[in-house]
C-alpha cells in the first residue's frame, strides 16, 4: 500500500519543474535531493524558480515536510524562488499551518504555475 517517492525533472525557460509522485516521507530524502540538484544543474540557463509539482503525491508526513523545508532553505540560499502546485486541500492546509505557504507560492496545478511564472510559450513547452 505504500509507494516510494519518484521524481522527474524538466527544464523550462527560467524555471525547473520537479514532478513528484508517491509518498514524500523520510524515504524520499535522496530522491528529492537528487531531483533538486538535477533540476538546477540540468540543461539550459540556471533556473531562477523551482516548481514542485505534488499532483501525483498521495502522502506527505512530518519528515516529508522537513525535506521540503530543506529544499526551500537551499533554494533561498541560492536565491531561487520555490513554488508548488497540485497539492490537495488537506496538504494546502498543512502548508498554511506550517507557514510554508508564506515562502512557497501555491498554484492549483502545473499549467497555472507555469503560465504565471514563465508565460504562455513556456506553458506550451511544459505540455
Amino acid at each position, binding site marked *: *500500500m*505504500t509507494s516510494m517517492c519518484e521524481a522527474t525533472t524538466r527544464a523550462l525557460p527560467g524555471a525547473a519543474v520537479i514532478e513528484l509522485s508517491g509518498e514524500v516521507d*523520510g524515504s524520499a530524502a535522496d530522491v528529492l535531493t537528487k531531483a533538486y540538484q538535477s533540476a538546477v544543474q540540468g540543461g539550459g540557463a540556471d533556473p531562477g524558480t523551482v516548481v514542485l509539482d505534488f499532483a501525483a503525491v498521495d*502522502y506527505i*508526513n*512530518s*519528515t516529508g*515536510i*522537513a*525535506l521540503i*523545508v*530543506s529544499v*526551500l*532553505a537551499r533554494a*533561498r540560499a541560492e536565491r531561487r524562488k520555490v513554488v508548488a502546485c497540485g497539492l*490537495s*486541500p*488537506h496538504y*494546502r*492546509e*498543512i502548508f498554511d*499551518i*506550517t*507557514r*510554508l505557504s*508564506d*515562502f512557497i507560492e501555491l498554484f492549483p496545478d502545473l499549467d497555472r504555475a507555469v503560465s504565471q511564472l514563465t508565460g504562455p510559450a513556456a506553458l506550451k513547452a511544459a505540455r
Partner: protein
Amino acid sequence: MTQVTRPTPRRLDAFTLPSEPGNERLALARVAKSVAGLDLPEARLERLKTAVAEATMNAIEHGNQNRAEIPVEVEVTQAGNVIVVAITDQGGEANPEPGNPEEPDLLRKLDGGQSPRGWGLFLIRNMVDAMDVTINGQRHTISLTMRTGGAAHDEHV
C-alpha cells in the same frame, strides 16, 4: 440540579502493529475504515488520518525504538459525536515526554537556527480537537480526540 448523561463509549476497533517504519500507514488506513459512516466530514477525516499517522510514527520510532517485537496498540472509540483514537507504546519511563519541546519556527529552520525536523507533535496538535498524553509505567498513550461535527476552525475554504 440537572443531571448530565454522558454517552457510553463504544469501541469501534482495537489492533496492534509491529514497530516497523512505515506501519503508520497501516494505522491510518485502519482507523479511517473504523470511522467510516460516522459522518466525519472529509477535511476532518484527513486531519485525523494525519494525526494518527504522526502519533503512530512517534510511537514506533521514539516510544518503541523501531523494535518490531514491541507492538504499538491502537484503540478507536466513539462516545456520541466524539471519536477518540488512543495510541500506546512502551516508552513511558524510558522516554518521558520532553518538558517543552521547541515550537517549530520555519524562519529559524530556513536560516539554520533550528533543525528542519520536529513537525510531528505540532501537526498532531493542529489536526485534532484535543491531544492528551498519559504515562503509566512503561505505557505511554497519546489520545487524539476529534468531534464528528464541525468545529469552529474547520472546513477548508
